[in-house]
């Protein structure tokens, strides 16, 4: 396992810091399972937020959008525990995550939030479906028991927000240079990226039925705002990292960040949203579906690049030494 095995020590420069290029810190073992969890957990949490927004601010006409968003949240939450448990090196002990609560550990905060969010969301979806059926039976257009629905919307939306947002803190609270240098920008970027992906997932799901081929204008505004914010935060975060951004500046990961996360995930959906407004109805639906699919692909690419980049950053003794001088 000795990580120095393949390295050639070469002649040593007495002024150079470091020890034969051996990494100063040990990198995380996290790979695509964790990137996939960040992606799906982000969509789920953000969709629950969208559902809550629709019910708390949108009035009766937004009930249908709220139901779609809640169902997307539940469907994307289901694979999350699977990814997380498979990533554990001792998966049968996954319930040990709920033995203690450690506020100093974002992973502890996240485990509890995920469990609580799962409970609220399941209840929320169940009650919404029940109300929908009751409404149909009674042939009523007005909402049934909005008080309970609003309370559930608030709780599932708030816990979903924590699930969508804590992952930035999880990465920031490490010794990994790429993740820990600008914790506030990384956290804001993660929540914005979750909102872009969540809005895209809800949009795509509601467009799948050709009958409702129109995007909800409020959701579209939120999606455009999230994507624009995510783009600004991504550029700002990378710029503020300076040389620490090296793993994401070059090579394959640099390509994935620029063209996947930035191009496909942020720029393309924004352009498509603007262009789709002038298209005929059927073309508009296809274009918006394409935009949502690109936003989702880009969202995953960004998470994947940040997770992988953290491993490269850990293995770079110069990056660690530069931040601990």
């Amino acid at each position, binding site marked *: 396992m000795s990580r120095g*095995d393949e390295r050639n020590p070469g002649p040593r420069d007495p002024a150079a810091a470091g020890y034969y290029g051996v990494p100063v810190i*040990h990198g995380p073992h996290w790979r695509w399972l964790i990137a996939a969890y960040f992606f799906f957990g982000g969509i789920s949490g953000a969709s629950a937020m969208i559902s809550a927004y629709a019910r708390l601010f949108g009035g009766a006409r937004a009930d249908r959008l709220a139901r779609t968003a809640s169902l997307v949240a539940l469907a994307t939450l289901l694979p999350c525990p699977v990814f997380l448990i498979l990533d554990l090196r001792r998966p049968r002990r996954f319930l*040990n995550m709920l033995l203690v609560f450690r506020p100093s550990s974002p992973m502890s905060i996240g485990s509890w939030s995920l469990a609580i969010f799962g409970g609220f969301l399941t209840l929320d979806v169940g009650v919404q479906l029940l109300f929908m059926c009751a409404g149909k039976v009674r042939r009523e257009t007005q909402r049934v028991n909005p008080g309970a629905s609003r309370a559930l919307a608030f709780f599932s939306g708030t816990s979903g927000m924590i699930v969508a947002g804590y992952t930035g*803190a999880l990465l920031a609270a490490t*010794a990994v240079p790429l993740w820990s240098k600008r914790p506030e920008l990384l956290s*804001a970027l993660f*929540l914005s990226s979750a909102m872009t992906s969540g809005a895209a997932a809800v949009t795509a799901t509601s467009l799948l039925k050709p009958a409702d081929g129109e995007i909800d204008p409020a959701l579209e505004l939120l999606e455009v705002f999230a994507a624009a914010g995510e783009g600004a935060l991504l550029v700002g975060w990378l710029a503020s990292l300076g040389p620490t951004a090296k793993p994401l500046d070059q090579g394959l990961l640099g390509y994935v960040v620029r063209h996947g996360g930035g191009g496909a995930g942020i720029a393309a959906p924004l352009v498509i949203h603007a262009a789709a407004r002038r298209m005929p109805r059927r073309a508009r639906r296809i274009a918006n579906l394409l935009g949502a699919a690109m936003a989702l692909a880009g969202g995953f690419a960004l998470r994947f690049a940040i997770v992988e980049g953290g491993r490269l950053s850990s293995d770079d003794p110069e990056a660690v030494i530069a931040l*601990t001088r």
Partner: protein
Amino acid sequence: MDQPAYGFLTDATLCIGCKACEVACKQWNQLPTDSPGDPPKLSGFSYDNTVDLGARTWRHVAFVEQPTAGGVAWLMLSDVCKHCVHAGCLDACPTGAIIRTEFGTVIIQDDICNGCGYCVPACPFGVPQLDHDDGGSHKCTLCYDRLQAGMTPACAKACPTESIRFGAVDELRAAGRDRVAALQADGVDALFYGDEDLGGTGGIAGLNAMFVLNGPPEAFNLPAKPKLPRRNVLPSALASAATAVVFTAVAAIAFRVQR
């Protein structure tokens, strides 16, 4: 009741690179080889074929060859878990597997650890590591079992030059500072690593396993001014909350206008 915190003082100026500490540690703690292949690979890094601390290597003797006017200065240091006063691994552990013992040391309870791997990047010194066979995270326990029996940790017991000293942290810290002062008086470029100025910086509040160094910390792969990862939790949480407030405001306007 008032049990003092125990720790190590490891002195690079006394180390002869015999690796007795590595052997004693492996033997007492029954740690298998790092390289299952036979024969083990040679690193080519001076006499260091251990290379790094890891899941199965809790003492690591670094060999630094520094070119000088007269030839090569050979620096040696036995690295170990720092048993930080505020420990990044302990802060990060979500299961409660990592605890602070009655001796002020930090240990991983193997029967609780579920192999999440968060303590690994949370350590600013690169100490804990997941074992590729059993999946758990492992590191130096400062011989918790020996301490409970009133014995000296295996590495310190085996060290033939007293380069590794075991004792109460307060006494070792004073001894380390005296040693650095004496070395400096003799013209040696010595440093004390493990207080809040060097090594125990950035919220770590000092190390219970300290070092006397005769070269810059980075030469031994020790970060000069490490920071406690937990410091980032609050700024991250506040930034997420602020972002969420902005989204909520935008959504409130968007959905109300539509209504």
